[in-house]
């Protein structure tokens, strides 16, 4: 697989951002688990990258689906992406050939866009998932505290976190449940609202039922009871989730108690008949009951769906909702991309201001250098100039330079109107030959 690069990427002389990484699209799980950075390793890597002069600022993001190095390459450093890749492979002691073609490399605006898409959840395996925003926020906070970041990455990551928040608040990308278990719990919330004062009964102990229990617990469900044919299994699950285990024989007795009923009994057919549920509703004095039937074959009589104040969802119903939600999330991608583009423009405007600031500093240096040379050259030819007059000439020429640069300095400090002028800044740099500064130094 070839290394992913963008041929149209914009190269700028000063405030360049570089990124290399692997994710679930470019590397299989067996490889990803070998290139994970722990929190401590992420900080060590950032430190090492800066100490080796590869990067001036660095942040490492490492989750189960991605390992990425973000940085601002040192000014004089060429081929920073190669150096970052080399560092990456040597840090994890993985032969370069094994990672060859697995890396993606982005620079400048493309690197910024990539990070913004990551925090927006658009680059995630599960479109719109929100966990990644927290992971990026933590990685950045640690790097910031450690002193591995600087003005560029600070601005970029703060922008990325804002993008993540806005995309989730203003679009449906992360709004709807994407798993069967969560869809079941979210639907129960459509009936009862806050689940804190409510109770649930889990019949059977299947894997998806356990996921439902986890979501119910996260939402602070009032009480949980577990019934299973094997009391030991019920007790084990109840012990793990802080619920109460009930013997199978008492199922009918406790059926009227919960507001949410989750069934996941394997290979037995209907455990809860319409008659039984009708009696249950009577016992509940008409209070609604939400039933999630995760069993295959179904554990609840399909006829029971018609009972008043009983809301029944089976695994297919939930699967269909998840599928609908997936499509709805995908339809929201253009809106999320629009937010990302808006924030990229903001970042570029800020970067242009920074670039323009450095141009003014470079011009000042250049003018002063020429002024000194000129004064030295001309005054050498003038014997009748007193030291006081020499001093005055030096002072006047210095003042002239400051006056010429007063307005651009002021405008740059104000920062207004710089959006979209990065090209102009680059042109100025080229016009005055400021992009050859490093060569001059040598």
């Amino acid at each position, binding site marked *: 697989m070839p290394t992913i690069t963008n041929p149209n990427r914009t190269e700028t002389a000063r405030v360049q951002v570089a990124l290399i990484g692997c994710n679930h699209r470019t590397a299989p799980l067996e490889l990803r688990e070998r290139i994970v950075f722990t929190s401590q390793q992420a900080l060590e890597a950032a430190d090492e990258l800066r100490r080796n002069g590869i990067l001036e600022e660095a942040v490492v993001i490492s989750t189960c689906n991605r390992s990425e190095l973000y940085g601002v390459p040192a000014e004089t450093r060429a081929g920073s992406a190669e150096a970052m890749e080399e560092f990456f492979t040597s840090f994890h002691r993985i032969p370069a050939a094994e990672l060859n073609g697995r890396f993606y490399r982005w620079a400048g605006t493309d690197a910024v866009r990539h990070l913004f898409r990551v925090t927006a959840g658009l680059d995630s395996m599960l479109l719109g998932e929100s966990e990644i925003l927290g992971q990026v926020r933590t990685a950045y906070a640690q790097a910031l505290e450690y002193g591995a970041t600087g003005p560029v990455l600070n601005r970029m990551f703060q922008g990325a976190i804002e993008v993540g928040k806005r995309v989730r608040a*203003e*679009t449906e990308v992360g709004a709807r449940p994407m798993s069967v278990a969560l869809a079941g719990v979210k639907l129960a919330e*459509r*009936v009862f609202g806050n689940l804190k004062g409510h109770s649930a009964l889990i019949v059977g102990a299947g894997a998806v039922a356990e996921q439902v229990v986890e979501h119910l617990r996260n939402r602070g469900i009032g009480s949980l009871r577990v019934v299973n044919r094997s009391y030991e299994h019920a007790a084990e699950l109840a012990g793990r989730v802080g619920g109460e285990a009930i013997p199978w024989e008492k199922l009918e007795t406790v059926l009227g108690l919960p507001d949410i009923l989750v069934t996941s009994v394997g290979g037995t057919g209907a455990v809860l008949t319409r008659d039984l549920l009708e009696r249950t509703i009577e016992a509940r004095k*008409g209070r*609604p009951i939400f039933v999630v039937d995760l069993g295959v074959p179904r554990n609840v009589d399909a006829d029971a769906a018609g009972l*008043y*104040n009983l809301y029944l969802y089976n695994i297919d119903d939930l699967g269909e909702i998840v599928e609908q939600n997936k499509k709805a999330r995908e339809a929201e991608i253009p809106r999320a991309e629009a937010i990302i583009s808006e924030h990229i423009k903001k970042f570029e405007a800020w970067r242009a201001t920074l670039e323009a600031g450095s141009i003014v500093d470079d011009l000042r240096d250049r003018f002063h250098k020429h002024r000194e040379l000129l004064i030295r050259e001309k005054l050498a030819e003038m014997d009748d100039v007193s030291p006081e007059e020499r001093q005055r000439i030096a002072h006047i020429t210095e003042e002239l330079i400051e006056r010429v640069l007063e307005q651009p300095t002021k405008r740059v400090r104000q920062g207004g109107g710089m959006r979209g002028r990065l090209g102009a800044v680059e042109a100025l740099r080229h016009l005055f030959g400021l992009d050859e500064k490093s060569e001059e130094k040598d």
Partner: protein
Amino acid sequence: MSHHLDYLTLAIYAASFLCYARVLYAPDLWVGRFASALLAGGMALHYFALLERSRLTHTVPYDDLYGSMSLFAWLLGLTYLGLEILHRQRSVGAFVTLLLIGWLGCLPLVIRDDMPTAPPARGPLFAFHVTLNTWAYAAFALSFVLSVVYIAQDSILRSRRAGTAFWRFPALDVLDRMSRSSVFVGLGALILGVAMGLIWEHRLRGTYSWGDPKVIVTLAILVAYVAYLGLSRSANWRGARAARLCAFNFLVVLFSYTFVNLYLTRFHRFF
């Protein structure tokens, strides 16, 4: 609407509706707060519009159909804002503000210049009687909106087809509680309003008009809503059935407010 203040009020309600609709589409705490603030601001302006109108006509705001309907809208907004604060729920704001806009926007269409004006106001008891009854109707209108949303939400849950709006609507339990709160407010206002009307009439004429169709229908409304409150907690009626009953009750209120007022009553025809 003929006054600039009225148009401005309508514009603010429209802005509030847009914000509430935005929140319904994509929840945002600050846009939601702004929607509530706009509604409150619109209501403050609406209040001054009613006051200004009273000053110009030298009488109470409900003196004619225009004023009566305008006061109804204002009380509807007031009741909704109270419930929004009590239940911390903004997702029905879009429906309520839309109703407000529709109601106020229709006023110039339904009111003619040659409509007879009401008899002059007859003291504070009469004023409270009319205001409280209008408030009761406004609260019942709000419970109607909530019940309709409940019925829609229940039907979506049963059909197992969850669209975009489904995930934004309040939970059935919240809608039920809000609707009941609104009916409580309406019943309280109606009982007080009717009592004041009876006292006022007795003072004026020394009798009670129990046979007047308006009184009969109003008492029927009272009974219907008391029945709703009782049945909405019973085993067989709790939930969607109670919501349907509540929605039906409001149709009786509308009948009383329009047909009974216009064609049947003798002395409740105040426009």
